[in-house]
């Protein structure tokens, strides 16, 4: 799960960089970058944080 989380987080960054080549319009790039940021945030909050919380000290006996 941690590995998937890192890959998804990185994928958001890659999508943002790809916006530079995908279109030259400001609106198009803005949309792609915002989508990239959303993917990275999902990777951090939705995948990585949950994966680490599974072993949180307060969940143990």
């Amino acid at each position: 799960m941690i590995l998937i989380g890192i890959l998804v987080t990185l994928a958001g960054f890659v999508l943002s960089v790809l916006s530079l080549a995908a279109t030259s319009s400001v609106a198009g790039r803005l949309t792609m970058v915002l989508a990239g940021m959303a993917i990275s945030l999902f990777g951090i909050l939705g995948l990585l944080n949950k994966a680490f919380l599974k072993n949180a000290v307060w969940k143990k006996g």
Partner: protein
Amino acid sequence: MKVATKSFLVVLLALVCTAPFSFAQTPAPPAATAPSATPSVIPAPVPKPILDSDLANVPVPSAEVRAKGDPDGSLTGNASDVTVSDPQKGLRIGDLVNQVGQNKIAINFVWTLITGYLVMFMQLGFALLETGLARAKNANHTMMMNVAVYGVGMFAYWLIGFAIQMGGVGAVANLGGTAPLSAEFTATLFGKPFGLFGQHGMFLMHKGTYDVGVMVLFLFQMVFMDTGATIPTGAAVERWKFSAFLITSFLFAAFTYPLFANWAWGGGWLANLGANFGLGKGYCDFAGSGVVHAVGGLSALAIAMILGPRIGKFSREGRPQVILAHDIVMVLTGCLILAFGWFGFNPGSTLGASGNGGLRISSIAVNTMLASATGLIGAMLYMWIVYKKPDASMTGNGFLAGLVAITAPSGFVNPVGAAIIGLIAGVLVCLSVGFVERVMQIDDPVGAVSVHGTCGLWGVISLGLFADGKSNYGGSWNGVNGSVTGLFYGDAGQLVAQLIGVATLLGFVFSLSLIFGIVVDLLVGQRTSAKSELEGLDLPEMGAIAYPEFELKSPS
């Protein structure tokens, strides 16, 4: 009360009576005057060229006069103090011009060095802030992390970090050149060069970097890096194994920070988004909301995730519990020291006070002050309204949040923009602390993730909104002519460049920090044992407690 009312009425009456006369006093049309002769224009005198021979007769106080002392300072500093290149020929025009050039660079050196010393002083602010927010049983450990990071971080940065960050920056005009920093490793992507890391400057000896201008740049950039490196210690307080902290800090100073700093400040691909892809002036970050604070804050988030919360921070049901700070006086003293140091952080980032827009230092300093004030007010009022008390530690965090947010835009926005940016940061930090603790269930004892991470990202974005296009640092920024201009002043492309920076911070910098953190965890283990944590880390990790007398007097 009656007297006041009467006085008010008298004043009002007087105003009404005089109003018609006042209104009548509109500027009269200019009186018709007899047409005069063509206005006489006195031509400006043509300056007489100064010749070398003129300089031979410049009066200088004689040795006898100087021997009597100079109590009013009128004799000290004269033509005899100008360095002469050829004593046989005496003072010449070329000597004067060289002296003027060296004076300009000297002013910039002194300015950059002194502001760098101020930034170094911020280490004390961080140390007091974090130690005060920890419990007394961890005071020695927390203080030691803040001291050790200075030495370890600097060592790693000297070895390789500076070369990665600035090894390809090229000539920094305000510092008289820094020409040896001329090798940037680039890859071609989408038909454009993407600068990835610098290559000159290891040990400050490599490839001619034993150079006075390079030394100034190193000192200034080193203290910035160290500010970033000390941020994760706040989120990891009371449970971070000291050996793991040392290795993690080394990796931060050697790789994580310098890579992003190269992309933003060292001539890397983010800085060139304007020149290569037409996005405003490229990614802009005047003093480091992104480079320093967001990098530090996101690294802090990665470490806090790996470590997990302190024992007792969350109940079995996952509800956050309050763990009180041991010294709120220390906390607020730390905040004030940090605010003082920020006058080095932001105005110092001009790298000079003379030439290339150096006089903007006044505007940058005022923007810094204003944002800190509105950040403080925003957080204090938010806590007062929502929680019924103006919480001291959150007010301090709001103070710092305003400063963090204004760090990137400080050189490009006007005072009203600065005040708004700070106010939003002050409220944002309160919301973010709640989100990190209640929703993410992450234990961040000092609020480092929110203050530096969240508000650092906000600072980067705010530049893309509020930059007013009035700044001028030599006519261009990041190789693109014109002033940095945000969305509200007409350039949407600048906002996109800023958001690509944010995406890089979230996607790349966070991931790299997490990978380094996991590797260190596998090698030496990041977290101390539960026994050490409960006992307090001072004795098991450092071998001595911070307050021995206090411990002796304790009832337990």
